[in-house]
């Protein structure tokens, strides 16, 4: 074990369903190392610690050398998507007991579905929703005092029924939190074992249904996160004293203590890390505007990066639950490497969303499934190497080919196995291209002005073709495309988000009130960061506000000017809103309609030193294919050169067709496309028509 004075390794750990990815950076040298271990779903903490120890052992280092651990987890997401709902309670204002049952009265999807759709069970059965008297108006004026007797009765009722996690959501609590806080005190007196989530803490924003659900989701995931983070702490052993940070859905990290105060912030922890890693690549590669495509075994995630920043939304959801806290805006479709090609009831060929997953896996895997998957199609076409990650385990090409041929024989057109395989890939590519079109149109963006960033195990073998379908200007593939999420964890600032609803019409803006509210939010943010040990010099505060045109209900979030809240502040804020409205919706009402201020928000950042992405060493610039393999394209098999990615020097240029192989991923360069290796080893693939190519 080395005996260095200062700890120098920062380690990112991204726990996925199949693998746990680990990336470490040596602060002294900038050197980066990656590894992968199998995940341990029954207790993910075990895989996590095993991975950390593994990467330390490779660097001949020990716990004393570790400066910090950053973790992306799907514990909250999985609890939400699969978890049996443990008993939850909800306390609401008298008259609103059916809030969850009514929701927003929406029936999802198509016309006419209201006849056969079955509303899913609510988060809290009606029996455990209790009303308490007391009421504020929207300005926070008390119209009726809190009925403390009803609160006590409710608390005793929950104790009797052993309902331990309780959400509290009273009308207009964003404007006046005193009743909710008093309810919490009383419940704590009557029932000290209860865990409480208060809507004025979790989401002090108007819209009672969304606020209640967000609060309940927080209460719901609390025990899961609590148990998980305790286990991690226990398993960490000698690493227990090292700062342990958890990724939040908003794209910032926070300490475990901070997370446990508001665990809902981890609802999309895992994917957020990938988006953050992508943002770093966007910056380094000189493609600040990107669509990311993260193709895994069963699904593909997309995220928009604009100006090297991932897009956030505060109108997101996880599964069926609206979760109105800031989170990276990610959309998902059910197409991945394991997606199965099958024949529908009507006799039509379908690809996905059914998936072979990791078990049994595609037909070509050892003990693989019995239906051909996208991976089988790529293998049959010669686009993937005939062996699993690193060459250890051979893949069964013949079995995959036979499976696809059998499927082809049930379809019209006398297709060969290769022709059908090509078709399966084509269907998947169009599905991904259509998903990208939908998400860019929602934001008024033309995908042709964006580049595609492809990662995940199943992305780069197809994405250059998706680039062509969309007419995008480039497709870039980062180094270690299977580990981008773990890498993202090392490029993340501390973050804490705070907000309050205060509706003010343009004609009735109280600047002193705004100043006071921002000051209070900033104080909360600083306190949170200082609690995590961030020195004042590294704290950065950003003010934002949600505004809308008076009378409408669509708010737009804009950055508010720093400095004093004077007339200049207001003019700056209003100007920013008109501009943002135009960008989002294509028009504005500047000079025609009054605005309304709705929410004030403050985000606090604890700025970290980002690891520099290491550059490749130049060498003599020479490189050569390691061999060739027949790869199938439209007109048949073509002998195609194979390159080992590790041997490609910066500045290397290759004209397709070519296959670039590395540990855990394969990149396909299609005929007439060009690829260039940038100084950091990022592959930049350009379409045939691009003037920038060659």
């Amino acid at each position, binding site marked *: 074990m080395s005996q260095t004075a200062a700890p120098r390794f920062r380690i990112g750990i991204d726990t996925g369903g199949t693998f746990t990815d680990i990336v470490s950076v040596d602060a002294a040298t900038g050197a980066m190392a990656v590894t992968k271990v199998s995940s341990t779903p029954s207790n993910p903490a075990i895989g996590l610690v095993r991975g950390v120890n593994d990467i330390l052992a490779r660097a001949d280092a020990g716990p004393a050398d570790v400066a910090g651990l950053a973790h992306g987890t799907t514990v909250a997401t999985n609890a939400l998507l699969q978890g049996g709902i443990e008993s939850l309670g909800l306390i609401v204002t008298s*008259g*609103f*007991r*059916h*809030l969850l*049952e*009514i929701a*927003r*009265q*929406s*029936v*999802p*999807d*198509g*016309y*006419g*579905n*209201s*006849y*056969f*759709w*079955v*509303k899913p069970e609510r988060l809290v059965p*009606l*029996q455990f929703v209790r009303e308490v008297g007391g009421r504020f108006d*929207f300005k926070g004026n008390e119209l009726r005092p809190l009925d403390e007797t009803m609160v006590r009765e409710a608390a005793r*009722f929950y104790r009797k029924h052993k309902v331990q996690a309780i959400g509290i959501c009273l*009308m*207009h609590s964003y404007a006046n939190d005193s009743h909710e806080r008093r309810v919490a005190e009383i419940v704590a007196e009557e029932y000290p074992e209860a865990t409480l989530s208060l809507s004025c803490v979790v989401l002090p924003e*108007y*819209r*009672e*249904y*969304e606020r209640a659900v967000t609060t309940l989701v927080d209460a719901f995931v609390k025990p899961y996160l609590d148990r998980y983070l305790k286990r991690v702490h226990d398993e960490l052993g000698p690493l227990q004293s090292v700062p342990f940070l958890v990724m939040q859905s908003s794209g910032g990290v926070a300490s475990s203590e901070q997370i446990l105060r508001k665990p809902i912030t981890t609802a999309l922890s895992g994917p957020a890390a990938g988006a953050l890693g992508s943002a770093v690549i966007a910056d380094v590669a000189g493609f600040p505007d990107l669509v990311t495509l993260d193709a895994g075994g069963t699904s593909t995630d997309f995220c928009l990066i604009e100006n090297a920043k991932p897009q956030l939304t505060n109108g997101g959801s996880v599964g069926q639950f609206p979760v109105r806290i800031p989170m990276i805006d990610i959309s998902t479709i059910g197409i991945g490497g394991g997606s199965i090609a099958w024949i529908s009831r*009507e006799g*039509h*060929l*379908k690809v996905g969303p059914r998936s072979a997953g990791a078990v049994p896996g595609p037909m070509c895997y050892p003990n693989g499934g019995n239906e051909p998957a996208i991976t089988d199609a790529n293998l049959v076409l010669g686009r993937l190497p005939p062996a699993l990650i690193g060459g250890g385990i051979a893949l069964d090409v013949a079995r995959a080919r036979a499976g696809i041929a059998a499927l082809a024989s049930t379809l*019209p*057109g006398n297709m060969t196995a290769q022709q*059908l395989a090509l*078709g*399966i890939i084509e*269907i998947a590519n*169009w*599905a991904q291209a*259509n*998903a990208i*079109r*939908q998400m860019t*149109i*929602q934001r*008024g963006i033309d995908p042709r002005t964006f580049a595609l960033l492809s990662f995940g195990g199943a992305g780069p073998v197809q994405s250059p073709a998706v680039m062509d379908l969309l007419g995008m200007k480039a497709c870039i593939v980062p180094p270690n495309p299977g580990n981008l999420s773990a890498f993202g964890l090392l490029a993340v600032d501390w973050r804490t988000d705070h907000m309050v609803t205060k*509706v003010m019409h343009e004609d009735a803006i109280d600047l002193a009130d705004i100043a006071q509210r921002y000051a209070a939010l900033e104080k909360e943010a600083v306190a949170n960061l200082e609690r995590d040990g961030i020195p004042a010099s590294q704290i950065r505060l950003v003010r934002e506000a949600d505004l809308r045109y008076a*009378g409408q*209900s669509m708010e737009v979030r804009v950055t508010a000017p720093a400095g004093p809240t004077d007339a200049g502040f207001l003019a700056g804020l209003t100007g920013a809103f008109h501009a943002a409205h135009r960008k*989002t*919706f*294509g*028009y504005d009402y500047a000079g025609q309609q009054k605005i309304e201020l709705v929410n004030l928000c403050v985000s606090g950042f604890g700025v970290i030193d980002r690891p520099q992405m290491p550059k490749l060493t130049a060498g003599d610039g020479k490189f050569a294919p390691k061999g060739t393999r027949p790869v199938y394209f439209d007109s048949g098999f073509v002998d195609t050169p194979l390159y080992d990615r590790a041997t490609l020097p910066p500045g290397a240029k290759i004209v397709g067709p070519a296959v670039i192989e590395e540990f855990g991923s394969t990149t396909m360069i299609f005929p007439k496309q060009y690829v260039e290796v940038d100084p950091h080893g990022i592959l930049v693939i350009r379409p045939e028509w691009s003037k920038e190519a060659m």
Partner: protein
Amino acid sequence: MNQHSRHPWPTAPARDVVHVDPIVLQIVEGTLNSIEAEIEYAIERTARSPMIREAHDYRVGLFDRYCRKLTGRSYSAMPNAVVRDFPPETMKAGDVFLMNDTYLTEGSIGHLPDLCSTVPVFHEGIVVAYIQAFGHHDDVGGKVPGSMPGTAATVFEEGMAIPPVKIYSEGVKNDAVFTIIKRNTRVPEMLSADLDSEVQACLMGARRMQGLFERFGKDQVEACFQAILDKCRDIYRNELLSKIADGEYAWEDYVEHDGLTDPKLHKIAIKMTKKAGKIVLDFNGTDPQSTGPINWPTDYADGAFLIKWIAPILRNLADTPERAAEIHVNEGVCDVFEIVFPPKGTLITPEWPAATNARSFVLLRSLGLLAGVVAKAVDGRMPADQETIRYTGFYGNDADGKPFLSREVLGGGSGGRYYADGNDAIHIVPDSRNQPAEFTETRFPVMVEKLALSTDSGGAGLRRGGQGYEKHYRALVDCRTIVTADRVRLGCYGLKGGKAGEPFCVTVDAEGEARKLGGLVDGAEVKKGQVVQVVTTGGGGWGDPLTRELSLVLRDVIEGRVSIAAAGRDYGVVFTAASTADEPAIDEAATAAKRAALAKARPSDLPMIDRGEGYEKMLRGEFRPRM
């Protein structure tokens, strides 16, 4: 005009088996669905009317060159009237057409606020497809703001009617049309911006569709279109129609007022004839057109709009609700249905200039009408009735003297199904949303005192009807309330022994003299401090309530969905004397005895359809006008 066509638009040639590349088919089908979604997203992003942005009241359609609808997640308008007036050979790339005339759009537009844009798609110089979008715009003139006067007797009171006109010629805007339109609405800027949004979205969709033709060629794409239509037809024939025994089935349902005569039963009659692979729906026997605005002009284009509107109801015959959700209804379904219309002059064949703005009553009843007649044919394996659209609201001057108008669409309970209870408080329009109370109170001088489900509103049944809303608004200023609602006296029907749900009711001054209003109210007085109570319809029940599992009745009582009194009366369930509100307990022996007694006291054959007490009272003339 195609000389072989019975219509002034081309008819697709009959063909034998369509040969289609299975891979291209998947790509074309997936891309059509994506184009539809992309156009919707573009409209949602840039439109301005609240009815479009918040109530999601707008629809997109993609059609082939024979005016056949290719996508099927939702209903839409139709391009037939445009093609009738502007033959495709005269169309040029960059042309855009607009229409909303309820009598000159071949049955595709039901009321004037729905302005519809149509864009032809060109490939190698000829029209190969059409892209269309319509939205429910906030105002197109007429005698009341919002262009939906409940007391209109003619279309002239309802606003501006536009037959198909060309609003862009080869990309050049026809400013004269826009000048006229803007002069005829109370919200000229909003309306013209909405139209821009819809036109631009359609043009974008047309470019995408053109891309498909360029990539795969006309023959291949058109073969895929045919296969997509055939798939829908075949699913209907093989999976849905096959569940209905051949034969004739008849039924009728009613709208109960028309804004000018209140109450009155306005009958819509249906006779369904099922024979090999085909369903004929004969609407003869439907009542004459109304003097009020509930008329629905449908007798055009062989009833293509009506068919596509009601056909989705048959999806309830699918093996599972999950399967039902997978079935998209496109023009292929028109091969399966045939409509026989009554002569001109009925509720569904009205003659110009009869008013149509409240045609949603007839339109919504037509769904329950088909569901009911099918239920008779399949021994009740259909959902019981639902009514989920009505408009309620307030207008007046707020405390500062500024005028305000709040309008809300509140849903209702859906009917019980053989596999599940009905849903509480839902809405039929996909993704439509109610108003949060915290939003209402910020914006309007009313306070929401209660946002709840109405106890006992869902019809009793083995599978109970879903509950309607019970919403209490306290007026903070003197103001007026408006209502446009059907099912005010007639409940949503119950099925196969299930009971009808409770009807809709608005009560003014609920804490005082409690005045009950009717269904079409243009401005009843409300005093400051009074509570207006809105109770919406419960869904009909399904199956015999005396056979409902005791555990479910107990849960309903614990959750307050069913009162102890109703549990006894409707379900024959007796609670022990020691029961409390929090912990009711069922007396099983007493329950068994009561259920037996109730069963004995009623006819042994339970009716397939129960219309509820309101219907009997209507027949006996016991209801007074509430207008």
